[in-house]
């Protein structure tokens, strides 16, 4: 029984790539990309994680089932985040003219605190 044995050069190469990406992510953090800083940082992190999973954890050389398991984990994490955000990203939206917002009250975020008066709870 032998799992796949990677050559040492592969490991060194991946290590090098990870270090470079770490330096890049630190460097890019000091560049003002506005709202894009967050997706760029996440994107670099995802790339690094993918390299670790594929090469250090041998997922690339593992069964299809293993690859499906890995994908499943991130898929459901994605569900947790995005479906929850359907709530949080749409709370400030008005539902009727002059209305406070979805579900009957305004959410107090930093950007809205000055402009939107705090409403009493309507409905539930």
């Amino acid at each position: 029984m032998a799992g796949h044995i990677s050559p040492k050069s592969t490991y060194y190469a991946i290590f090098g790539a990870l270090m470079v990406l770490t330096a890049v992510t630190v460097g890019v953090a000091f560049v003002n990309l506005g709202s894009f800083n967050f997706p760029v940082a996440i994107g670099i992190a995802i790339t690094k994680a993918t390299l670790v999973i594929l090469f250090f954890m041998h997922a690339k050389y593992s069964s299809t089932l293993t690859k499906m398991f890995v994908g499943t984990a991130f898929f459901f994490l994605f569900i947790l985040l995005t479906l929850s955000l359907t709530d949080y990203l749409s709370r400030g939206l008005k539902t009727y003219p002059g209305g406070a917002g979805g579900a009957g009250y305004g959410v107090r975020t930093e950007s809205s605190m000055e402009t939107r008066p705090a409403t009493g709870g309507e409905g539930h």
Partner: protein
Amino acid sequence: MSDAIAAHAGAHAAHTAHAVHHPDLQHHFDSLEQQHEAATLGMWLFLITEVLFFGGLFLAYTLYRIWYPVAWAEASRELDIVLGAFNTAVLIGSSLTMAFAVRAAQTGKQRATVVWILLTMALGLVFLIVKYFEYKEKFEHHHVPGPNFAFEGPQAGPAQIYFSLYFLMTGLHATHMIIGFVIMAVIAWMAHKKRFTPEWYTPVEISGLYWHFVDIVWIFLFPLLYLVDRAGHFA
């Protein structure tokens, strides 16, 4: 198809006749290969649970980052980016040494396995020591949430949420590292006792999977906690 089934049944009958039996083969498995596949699948499944375990905190983080960008920017700047980047490099290095440890076990190099695992543990220890100093600094600056929390400016409330998440996420991560450290000690001991062969090195491999996972969590924690707004966009 039925030939394959019959052949397998025949081969299995030979096994149950109890002729050759590898000492590391557990009795409910038919072959070392099946046992190895089961073990690695099991560890990957456990890591899936860990992804969702940390995932809940990532949800909280995401939500509050959207709600309180200014507080997030200010609070994140209180973290030491040099120490954070250093720790990231240390952990990635420990993943490299771990990968070499597995490779050494795969190729039957017992002593090298021990050495690489000890190096992994050493790097892990460095990480934890740096973390200790970071936490100490947080205590001194009253950035630990709770009754003694103090933060200047109007962002104090949401900043306390940031630091709650900082301690929850890094604390949980550090706990996993400590557990990993203990696991590595056990594996190092087993390697020292020459337990592993190229036919059976499963504990090294699945411990490696766990260690790499802990590294991956930090790969996400570093930018999320240390690099929120270093360019001064929000504040």
